[in-house]
């Protein structure tokens, strides 16, 4: 009951969803629609569990007075503000939209823009052309960076004006993205996809059972 039923459910849902994709019959399509509907109904409950876990983590932080525990109150304040306004009035309410536009969006954009500085320091360490492979990494990154900005073509057309090609920086960037980069990405995608399929088969057949966890 505790281990076998979940394995049977995983097998049934896996096989049914797999076969619905191969059959154009209306019955198959209706089963597909129904199961997708089930997944849509169940997913919000999973998010609720995630939220409970977050709250539990921060409550424990406050109780144990761990380092920077005071900031857990800030997490609760942010969470409650959004929930108290958003739940009864909906995401279209002006106050909710105001909070989203003036607090969450700036925080989100600034947090990710901060990575521009961190990525620059990481590049300084990673891009030292010590080996052939590191040199390739450095050269392709530089070409893509320079080709992405208008000043790249300006430099090319000014300094290398004697060459027969115009806008060479953006052309070189485009060629790298469309050829060696694409072939590497295709290789990675094919490899990852084969891995995904084999893992999916292992899950459906019950060979991979880590999601059930230990115990009975």
């Amino acid at each position, binding site marked *: 009951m505790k281990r076998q039923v979940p394995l049977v459910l995983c*097998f049934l849902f896996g096989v049914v969803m797999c076969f619905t994709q191969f059959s154009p019959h209306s019955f198959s399509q209706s089963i597909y629609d129904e199961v997708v509907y089930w997944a849509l109904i169940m997913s*919000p409950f*999973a998010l609720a569990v995630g939220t409970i876990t977050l709250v539990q983590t921060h409550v424990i932080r406050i109780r144990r007075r761990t380092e920077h525990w005071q900031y857990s109150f800030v*997490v609760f304040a942010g969470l409650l503000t959004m929930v108290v306004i958003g739940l009864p009035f909906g995401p279209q309410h002006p106050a909710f939209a*105001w909070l989203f536009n003036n607090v969450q969006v700036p*925080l*989100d954009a600034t947090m990710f*823009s901060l990575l521009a500085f961190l990525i620059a320091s990481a590049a300084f360490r990673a891009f030292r052309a010590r080996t052939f492979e590191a040199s390739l990494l450095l050269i392709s990154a530089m070409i893509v960076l320079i080709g992405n900005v208008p000043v790249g073509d300006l430099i090319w057309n000014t300094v290398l004006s004697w060459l027969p090609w115009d806008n060479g920086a953006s052309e070189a960037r485009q060629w790298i993205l469309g050829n060696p980069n694409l072939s*590497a990405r295709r290789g*990675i995608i094919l490899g990852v996809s084969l891995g995904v399929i084999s893992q999916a088969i292992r899950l459906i057949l019950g060979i991979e059972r880590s999601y059930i966890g230990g115990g009975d």
Partner: protein
Amino acid sequence: MEIFGIWIAALLTLCIYSFLYKDNLFYRFAEHLFVGMSVGYGIVLSVHQGFIPFAWEPFWAAVKPFWPGVPREAGWSGLWKLIPIGVGLLFFSGVSPRHTWLIRYPTAILIGFGAGLSIPNVLRANIFEQTRGTVEPFAAVHAGTLSGWGIFEAVLMVIGVICTLTYFFFSVEHRGPLKWISKVGIAFLMIGFGSAFGNTVMGRVALLIQRVDFLINDWIGSIF
């Protein structure tokens, strides 16, 4: 209210950028506020765009016929929708140590659903389509409509894909010709990683420019 919003956004932006000096209380405040508000936003969206239309409304439609004064012919078939709601509620069994094993049921259903759906979709989109895209230019070579440079690019593409795949082929030891093929694969991967890095940097710098533009034009511009 608009000016107040600009000031709030500007101060929070400066709080985050204060991290460039060192980790400090302003940065930690903004960071934790971001986490809380993001989760709150996710909850609101999940309830209004997920729970209410997909769980609450079907549930209400299912129990409505049993409500006093509502005609019974309103529909018994809606009870069918109570099954996924009940299974979804099993996610909460995780809070009780004795019944925590019940969480395996919804997890198994969602994992089976995802695994079953991924097999045909990944096959179609990531294997067949990518392979087709790799070999398709050779049809133009056969038809004689591809230039010499186009043929070079088509051959380079096939070599790149094969060599990259060979690098990830761990079933045999990389010795002899396989070693050199995988080395070529590493070269292609390095170019790919370099390009990805360049694009990522550009994306982040674009965000940085947008934030600095906001601080200079919207915020300081509103003061003077």
